[in-house]
């Protein structure tokens, strides 16, 4: 690290076109559904039509008689042959691959068919007879908390899976001493990552060796693959998960275990390879990765001069029927709960409720995007109460550059930042003064123009404590979240880099690796090939998620490079008869410092390393390969009393988004005049791909804010189970973004990189909400819920006009 820090980077920071793209551009992406194994069968799943029902009887005989059907399985088979699926839940909240005894949401898997092709498998699903005894569903989380409500998990004795109040600092004192308090009830509805490619896997059980190979479009947490083996009751050593490119994830393929387990189980019972790829309805009803579904009561205490003092949050989160990641999504919120502001104390009450819906999982932001939206709403309320400019109240409360590293009340650390710099860049980029003037002019003309500003955090690189610090007696208080890399130089001097998790799901892991290795060895990117280990060969790897991958894989690559360079230098020093310390890497060569003519090329050294043992120093093994497992560089344990949660998400970026919109009050439609985004996520590895993340993430955030919602009716039926009802933004629905960067390196990470994968979605919901609210300011509208649909806008205006249209 020291070596690279002193020299000007050649590849880091360059907008290099991605090395991943050529296969995808040609339609040769080799996604999971593109793969075919000899003798492979196809699966389809029968899903529950009820949100809550007891399974009385299942008759599979007609389905089994259909020509082309190989196997039909139900919850009975699963109960006999498998363990429940992995979970971070504490208490008896068990999920099975196929529902056992009762179903807990509409769409839960009840039976699976393996057949010659998908058409026949689906025909057979129609022939399965299931007798249900419908139970009263519990859909509303507040009704779920009432005494006597139907129980999602009877053994738990309550639908409240978790409830606790955390207090960080002197909240009551700060509220008592503050000049003002604003309060709001806020609602963030359930949406989902909705990648264009669904989850899929192929199971291939080899009866000869007892090894189960699963090809899957996700492989996070290679050191947790034993959990999948445990579900399947096979030795972890006989499970091989082969990672396959994913067609998008945005969190939805984060530790995706159910679909691979399904394909693996079906292959074991059917005795042949089985492919199971969710169709879109499977995915929407059942992806186990719905986003946060939260109801907030929030109060913010502040003074006459705009100083923000304290924050009280009371959140009810509707988790659905299971709790696979526990309440980790709120750990994410607590990582940056006070945003970029010097708020001194925080109270955070969380009530996690179980209802008859599909469970939550990960969606870009993992719950912290919600907290950003909530906090920025509250800061706007404070500004309006004081009549302060919304940019200036933010500026006044920013943590100052000299205060870093800065410990927030929850215990998490912000590593570095210059928030005012970002704000100023954004105000300039959008031409704030101009639009403030335009807004006034528009209002005089009876037009409704609004400006929305958010200045918010993008935490990156999770440690594992957020999954369990909620509990005094956590079930599994894991503290590891490593990433590994292996660098091999082949006998011809070319590089093969092996990654140890499935890093590709639309991000640019191979490009990052190529840029970092080219930087480390000063070699040409075209000499580097990137490949992925399967789980039997993988070193510990966690994969993407929580904007961790670029930071963590770079750490692993820097570590592996150092080991490999040391060996190369020893070989070269022996040959050149100099000290290894006198050597440096330059343009594909190892040369003597100060005498560049005395050099060996990497291919000369590689050939010696593999083929000419007698030319090597005595203590050098043949070959050129090194691995390194990089652990989270800065994480600490929570205190026993949980008044300090420790450091768990310390590489904290920052961004400012400013949207300028104009609303048509008659239709509730609006147009964008401008959308500017300035991000600071430390050292930028590839500006072009980072822009891509910001733009794509911001559009997803606009989807959440304006269009997307999982709507369940009172009987627990999903009303938005297709793209006709669940509205993903099209090219016509989104603005053009002006994007700029500031680079404030992290002092704790290799090259000073911070993660940047989620920032777009963590900012845009707040920016668009604030802009629309500002446009509707003449009506006094306060926007407290998403999605902000045209009909809601028209309704709010009508309400403001006293019911007059």
């Amino acid at each position, binding site marked *: 690290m020291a070596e690279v820090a002193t020299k000007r980077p050649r590849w880091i920071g360059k907008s290099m*076109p*991605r090395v*991943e*793209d*050529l*296969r*995808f*551009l*040609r*339609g*040769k*992406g080799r*996604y999971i*559904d*593109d793969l*075919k194994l000899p003798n492979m069968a196809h699966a389809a799943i029968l899903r529950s039509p009820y949100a809550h029902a007891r399974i009385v009887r299942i008759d599979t005989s007609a389905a089994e008689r259909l*020509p*082309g059907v190989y196997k039909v399985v139900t919850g009975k088979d699963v109960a006999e042959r498998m363990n429940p699926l992995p979970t971070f839940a504490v208490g008896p909240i068990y999920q099975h691959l196929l529902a056992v005894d009762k179903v807990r949401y509409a769409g839960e898997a009840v039976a699976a068919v393996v057949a010659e*092709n998908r*058409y026949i498998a689906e025909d057979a699903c129609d022939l399965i007879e299931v007798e249900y005894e419908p139970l009263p569903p519990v859909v509303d989380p507040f009704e779920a908390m009432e005494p006597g409500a139907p129980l999602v998990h009877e053994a738990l004795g309550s639908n409240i899976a978790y409830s606790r109040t955390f207090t960080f600092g002197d909240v009551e004192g700060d509220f008592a001493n503050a000049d003002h308090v604003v309060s709001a009830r806020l609602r963030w509805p359930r949406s989902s*990552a*909705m*990648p*264009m*490619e669904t989850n899929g896997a192929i199971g291939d059980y080899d009866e000869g060796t007892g090894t189960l190979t699963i090809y899957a479009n996700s492989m996070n947490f290679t050191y947790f693959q034993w959990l999948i083996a445990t579900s399947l009751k096979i030795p972890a050593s006989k499970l091989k998960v082969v990672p396959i*490119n*994913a*067609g*998008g*994830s*945005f969190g939805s393929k984060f530790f995706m275990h159910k679909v691979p387990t399904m394909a693996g189980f079906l292959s074991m019972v059917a005795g042949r390879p089985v492919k199971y790829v969710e*169709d*879109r309805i499977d995915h929407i009803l059942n992806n186990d990765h719905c986003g946060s579904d939260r109801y907030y009561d929030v109060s913010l205490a502040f003074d006459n001069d705009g100083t923000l003092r304290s924050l009280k949050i009371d959140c009810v989160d509707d988790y659905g029927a299971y709790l696979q990641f526990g309440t980790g999504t709120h750990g994410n919120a607590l990582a940056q709960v006070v945003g970029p502001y010097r708020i001194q104390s925080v109270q955070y009450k969380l009530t996690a409720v179980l209802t008859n819906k599909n469970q939550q999982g990960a969606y870009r932001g993992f719950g912290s995007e919600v907290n950003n939206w909530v906090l920025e709403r509250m800061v706007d309320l404070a500004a309006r109460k004081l009549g302060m400019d919304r940019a200036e109240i933010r500026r006044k409360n920013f943590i100052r550059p000299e205060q870093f590293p800065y410990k927030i009340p929850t215990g998490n650390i912000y590593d570095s930042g210059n928030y005012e710099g970002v704000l100023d860049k954004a105000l300039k980029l959008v031409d704030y003064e101009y639009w403030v003037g335009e807004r006034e002019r528009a209002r005089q003309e009876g037009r409704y123009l609004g400006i929305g500003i958010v200045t918010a955090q993008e935490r990156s690189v999770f440690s594992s404590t957020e999954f369990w610090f909620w509990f005094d007696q956590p079930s599994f208080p894991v503290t590891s979240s490593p990433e590994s890399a292996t660098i091999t130089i082949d006998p011809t001097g070319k590089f093969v880099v092996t990654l140890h998790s499935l890093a590709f*799901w*639309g*991000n*640019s892991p191979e490009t990052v690796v190529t840029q970092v290795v080219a930087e480390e060895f000063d070699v040409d990117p075209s000499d580097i090939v990137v490949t992925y280990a399967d789980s039997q060969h993988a070193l510990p790897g966690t994969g993407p998620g929580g904007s961790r991958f670029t930071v963590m894989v770079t750490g692993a690559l820097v570590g592996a490079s150092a080991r490999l360079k040391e060996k190369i230098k020893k070989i070269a020093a022996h040959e050149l008869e100099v000290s290894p310390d006198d050597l440096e890497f330059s343009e594909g060569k190892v040369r003597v410092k100060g005498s560049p003519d005395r050099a060996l090329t990497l291919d000369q050294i590689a050939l010696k390393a593999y083929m000419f043992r007698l030319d090597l120093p005595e203590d050098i093994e043949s070959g050129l390969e090194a691995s390194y497992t990089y652990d989270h560089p800065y994480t600490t344990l929570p205190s026993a009393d949980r008044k300090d949660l420790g450091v768990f998400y310390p590489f904290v970026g920052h961004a400012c988004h400013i949207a300028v919109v104009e609303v048509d009050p008659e239709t509730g439609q609006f147009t964008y005049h401008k959308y500017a985004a300035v991000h600071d996520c430390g050292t930028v590895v590839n500006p*072009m*791909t980072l*822009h*891509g993340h910001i*733009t*794509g*993430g*911001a*559009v*997803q955030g606009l989807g959440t804010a304006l269009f997307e919602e999982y709507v369940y009716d009172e009987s627990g039926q999903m009303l938005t189970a*297709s*793209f*006709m009802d669940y509205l*993903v933004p*099209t*090219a*016509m629905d*989104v603005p*053009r*973004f002006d994007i700029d960067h500031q680079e404030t390196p992290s002092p704790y990470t290799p090259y000073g990189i911070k993660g940047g994968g989620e920032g*777009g979605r963590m900012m845009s919901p707040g920016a668009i909400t604030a802009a629309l609210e500002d446009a509707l300011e003449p009506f006094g509208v306060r926007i407290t819920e998403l999605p902000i649909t045209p009909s809601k806008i028209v309704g709010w205006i009508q309400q403001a006009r006293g019911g007059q249209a």
Partner: protein
Amino acid sequence: MAEKHAITVTVNGRLYRAEVEPRRTLADFLREDLNLVGTHLGCEHGVCGNCTVLVDGKSTRSCLMFAVQADGREVLTVEGLAPNGDLHPLQRAFWEHHALQCGFCTPAMLLTAYEYLTTRPDAGTDEEIREAISGVLCRCTGYQNIVTAIRAAAKQMAPSP
């Protein structure tokens, strides 16, 4: 199982004869029978447009068309855009302008843009490009770089003056 029908379809300039069930979709015929897996299925409801191919030059949801309906017609898939191994100017522009991330919608986007540029060789306004591609959902890019890439490709494809 229903009786199979004999069809003759030209795909990417090559003539195929096959027997298919009436319910077999064009998408499944391309992917499963011809092994042209560059055509991707995103929703199978005809909404996401990720399965778009060109049938007789017109963009078509291959998930909503049956293979038997393609009898006697010409289909272009992403594999036929640059059959000799080079990149089509659209593919090159998508690469240079980072117009793809996961790549799943990319074949449909490329074919949709290809059809659009045959009708609007100058690429028109950004609004027009956005309207032209609005039938294909992309969840990664936010569309901005796709618009840029289509404009850049149009410049490359324009006949030299």
